[in-house]
């Protein structure tokens, strides 16, 4: 181990960043869609969707990971489909991103929904009268107005993804350089006598990264909220 962090540890940091980034990116559009559907539409199965979205929050992470494993594992049809389209997730970092995205999803959807519920439908109506189609209204009015919620949801998802452990290790295991994210590495160190020192170092790193993301999001969110507030 050279320097403050060894190469394996740096690897875990880099991997966690990559996984969290992609998890957030994956969850964002779906999160916006789900939040919009839940907030604005009434359709059969609305409650079911709502429940599904929240499931990862309710279930112990290990259970979520287990469910992911039997859904997206190499033997499962969904897993084989993903493999066939060239995006295998089983025991890959892509799977870690998927797990993190799933775990972060309810947080993100909630955040976006709250923003959505606060958008004054009168402004959307006004845009409609100006000839904007529903999709344009969404893009030009709704989306900018919920931007603070999206940023908040995004950062929440990112932070959650940085800390996600149970589902990840259960779904994609703990493969160095592929699926050994920061929390998994922390766990690994804690399992052996004398590993606490390394664990603490990694915990500090995660805190620094997540705080930086948090401050950034805080700043972006304030600026956006400022733009959006008051007519």
């Amino acid at each position, binding site marked *: 181990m050279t320097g403050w962090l060894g190469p394996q540890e740096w690897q875990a940091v880099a991997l966690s960043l990559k996984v969290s980034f992609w998890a957030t990116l994956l969850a964002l559009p779906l999160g916006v869609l789900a939040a919009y559907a839940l907030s604005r539409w009434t359709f059969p199965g609305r409650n079911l969707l709502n429940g599904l979205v929240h499931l990862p929050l309710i279930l112990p992470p290990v259970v979520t990971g287990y469910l992911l494993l039997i859904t997206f594992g190499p033997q499962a049809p969904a897993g084989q489909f993903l493999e066939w389209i060239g995006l295998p997730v089983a025991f890959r970092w892509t799977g870690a991103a998927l797990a993190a995205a799933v775990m972060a999803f309810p947080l993100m959807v909630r955040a976006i929904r709250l923003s959505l519920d606060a958008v004054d439908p009168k402004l959307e109506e006004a845009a409609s*009268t100006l000839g904007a189609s529903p999709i344009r209204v969404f893009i030009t009015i709704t989306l900018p107005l919920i931007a603070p919620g999206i940023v908040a949801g995004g950062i929440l998802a990112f932070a959650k993804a940085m800390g996600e452990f149970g589902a990840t290790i259960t779904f994609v295991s703990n493969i160095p350089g592929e699926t050994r994210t920061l929390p998994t590495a922390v766990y690994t160190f804690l399992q052996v006598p004398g590993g606490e020192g390394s664990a603490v170092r990694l915990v500090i790193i995660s805190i620094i990264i997540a705080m930086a993301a948090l401050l950034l999001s805080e700043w972006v969110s304030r600026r956006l909220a400022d733009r959006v507030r008051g007519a």
Partner: protein
Amino acid sequence: MLTVSITHQLGDFSLDAAFEAPAGISVLFGRSGSGKTSIINSISGIIHPDRARITLGDRVLIDTSRAINIPIHRRRIGYIFQEGRLFPHMDVAQNLAYGARHARGAAVVPEARIVEMLGLGAMLKRRPRDLSGGEKQRVAIGRALLAAPDLLLADEPLAALDGPRKAEILPYFERLRDELAVPVLYVSHAVGEVARLATSVIAIEDGSVVRQGPAEEVLADASVTPTGIRAAGAVLRARVVAHHADGLTELVAGGIPLHLPRIEQALGTELRVRISAQDIILSRQQPEGLSALNILPGQVRNVRAGQGPGAMVTLDTAAGPLLVRITQRSAASLNIAEGVSCFAIVKSVSIAPEDIG
């Protein structure tokens, strides 16, 4: 031509209105809470009425009996809301551009012209929350106009504006009325505005249309409640014949000369001049030595005594029928009765600038 027929229940309030709005400006006139905004909302598609059939030209906007309901954004309707509804995340320029961006035809008026007319130049880069109440409303007007709609709905668009600014914007609505085929449905409480702008007037009471017709007729009808006595008046059609050196413009209505402070209109222009019933003094003999310049001889068609001290006299003159409100005491002392001849005295300046157009 806009035809509207709506039945709708809002809590305790029932809306049951049917009317037609021809080209030009149709003013919806009625007390607070009488249902004007609800009607406008139904036409724009924001309210989905219980039962309705609304057509604009040959387009059916909604027909609940045939399950037709064109979505808001395809109705091609410009709506100036009672409360502005500017987009808070866009600056003024972007708010204006929003209308133009989705415009369904060539802009009626170029943006630069609208910015200038509404005095928005200095605030293009500001956000709505940094605008004063009146400024917001001006932006809202500009935005709706730039959308080049087939029908313009205006819900008390000028209520928040000061007199001079109103006076500046009113001519634009007149231009809309006179130069373009775009019908305008215009909600207003202000008699001056109504008189000046309205091609036709639709009076609403408790959710129902109590009176509709050409502006001249409805406004001349003292019984239209929301208008009320003070707003009664006649609208004359007059033609500009001369601009005098002393600043007066001479018009002729049915052969009778009328003098008004300079009107910037070309000779020959046909104008509508509203003379409020209460601004006329009657005299039995030809008046002399008065500062009033406009004297119209006529014959009393009828005298209706109202409740209270007043009486409404309809006087047939060569310029058209005039409505004159006097006290019953004067009517008695001057012996004003059906058939008698008398003179209507109108101060030139009592024809308010807003009432000419």
